[in-house]
């Protein structure tokens, strides 16, 4: 179970990285099209979809690596018992909100499919397809929060030091 979940987060993360390359490829395709005078309609929109996919699919992986930022000022200065209570509270809130986020993202994608919602740009993409990445990414994030919440309840959560998170911003 543990291994399967970790594989899920990492697989979504790798998929996100592929969409990152996709974002670059779409922007370059747009430039090349303009310079070499061939017309690739909708590269702007595709770049946007790829970027969104990269962001949403990486959510759980980034969370597991401890790289989503939060204010730890209070957490660092209280005793272990209070810390545990506060961690449970933060993870509980995050699980609840990510569940709402996941549910309404899935609903948006489903509604776009149901109403045959088409992008208004010149890419004319049926919107449910790119929106599906948001639904999948947020569902995986919800699973990751729930996973972490249960681990914390059982006292089996690993303390993580975000090492790479430092050179951000």
């Amino acid at each position, binding site marked *: 179970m543990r291994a399967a979940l970790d594989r899920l987060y990492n697989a979504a993360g790798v998929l996100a990285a592929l969409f990152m390359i996709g974002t670059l490829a779409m922007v370059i395709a747009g430039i090349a099209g303009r310079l070499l005078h061939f017309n690739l309609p909708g590269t702007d929109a595709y770049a946007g979809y790829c970027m969104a996919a990269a962001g949403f699919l990486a959510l759980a992986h980034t969370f597991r690596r401890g*790289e989503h930022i939060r204010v730890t*000022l209070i957490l660092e200065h209280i005793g272990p018992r209070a810390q545990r209570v506060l961690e449970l509270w933060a993870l509980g809130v995050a699980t609840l909100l990510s569940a709402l986020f996941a549910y309404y993202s899935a*609903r948006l994608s489903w509604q776009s499919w149901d109403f045959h919602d088409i992008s208004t740009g010149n890419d004319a993409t049926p919107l449910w397809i790119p*929106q599906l990445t948001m639904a999948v990414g947020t569902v995986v994030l919800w699973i990751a929060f729930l996973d972490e919440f249960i681990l914390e309840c059982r006292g089996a959560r690993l303390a993580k030091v975000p090492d790479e998170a430092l050179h951000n911003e």
Partner: protein
Amino acid sequence: MDALITTLLIGALFALLGSGVWIGIALSGVAWIGMELFSSRPAGDAMAVTIWGSASSWTLTALPLFVWMGEILFRTRLSEDMFKGLAPWLERVPGRLLHTNIIGCTIFAAVSGSSAATCATIGKMTLPELKARGYPEDITIGTLAGAGTLGLLIPPSIIMIVYGVSANVSIAELFIAGVIPGILLASLFSGYIVVWALLNPGKIPIASERTTFAQKFHASRHLIPVVILIAVVLGSIYVGVATATEAAAFGVVGSLCLSAVQGSLNRKTFFDSLMGATRLYCMIALILSGAAFLTIAMGYIGLPRHLAEWIGSQGLAPVWLIVALTLFYIVLGCFLDGISMVVLTMGVILPTVEAAHIDLLWFGIFVVLVVEMAQITPPVGFNLFVLQGMTKRQITWIARQAIPMFLLMSVAVAMVWIWPQLIMWLPAHMKLGG
């Protein structure tokens, strides 16, 4: 009623943030509470539509690409090369190699969009080199902490993209507008080092080797790759052949080429930089998502408009508005990172700023300057964290060394207020790309 709503929402925000809820999630939570309690619209659907719209918008695509470019350059030998190229020229200036901190950060800032990355990349080179030559550690670390923040002001800049998207200001213009204030701030830092060196003559070690002009010139060849990269990225924006996003794509390809030429590009560094960039972008994207939802929720409730009307009715002169905002951001900067600060406040403050007839391009650079100050204010300041990790010193000690830099930044804010042309002149002379 307004006062009650505001107090309740701000209270909820601080409770969620303070209790360690992840920032992006906390923003969504407050937006949800606000919409459920004070608006008749369904919160869930508004959340999904708004977040999807902001997360997939074309203007924002410059952000992941510049993040990626920074991650690639972080894993090259660029900073070593810059040190080799710069050091011979600085042996005769008062303060000598201390200036490699300032000039190194200024140059690296022109290819990097982030302050902490600039600080880390330059610091991993200058800190050990300067220590080995006997430079006092306090001023070395203090100047590095300050100069690292130039990563935000000198384009490309992640925070400017975030501001440009929230305020609907051209990112290309913001980038170009940051150039002169960035150079101004770098000159202030360098000037401080010169004055400090003249006041403390014994503290700077004497020059180790004399070099001829020809040798200096020859050493400068190490600077060629970074200069080309700057020319490609900023040049293409300034002459109008590329939008910010396209320049970012050039930047990624250019940094990969640079890394390949140097021989530091391999499967591992490529994969590391890609995954690092994906996670870093994702971290920012979560905050942006929460902020987009919060902004729309605030709009439905009508808070920003009421705030603008209230401040307008106070008859506050614009200068006092700016002074108040500066203080507000400095306090906020003690607890929040720069991106969260900008996205959190923009939705609420922009109508007020517009009502006071303050130019949004000018205001963008102002915000970047105060966010820079926040990078070096304890207890939460990203440059302080970076330097703490690199030097194993106490964060309060590092912050104390950076106080002169903080004061110089305040001087810069005052200068751009007195002479707005420092910001407005260059963008007025650029050609805009599509």
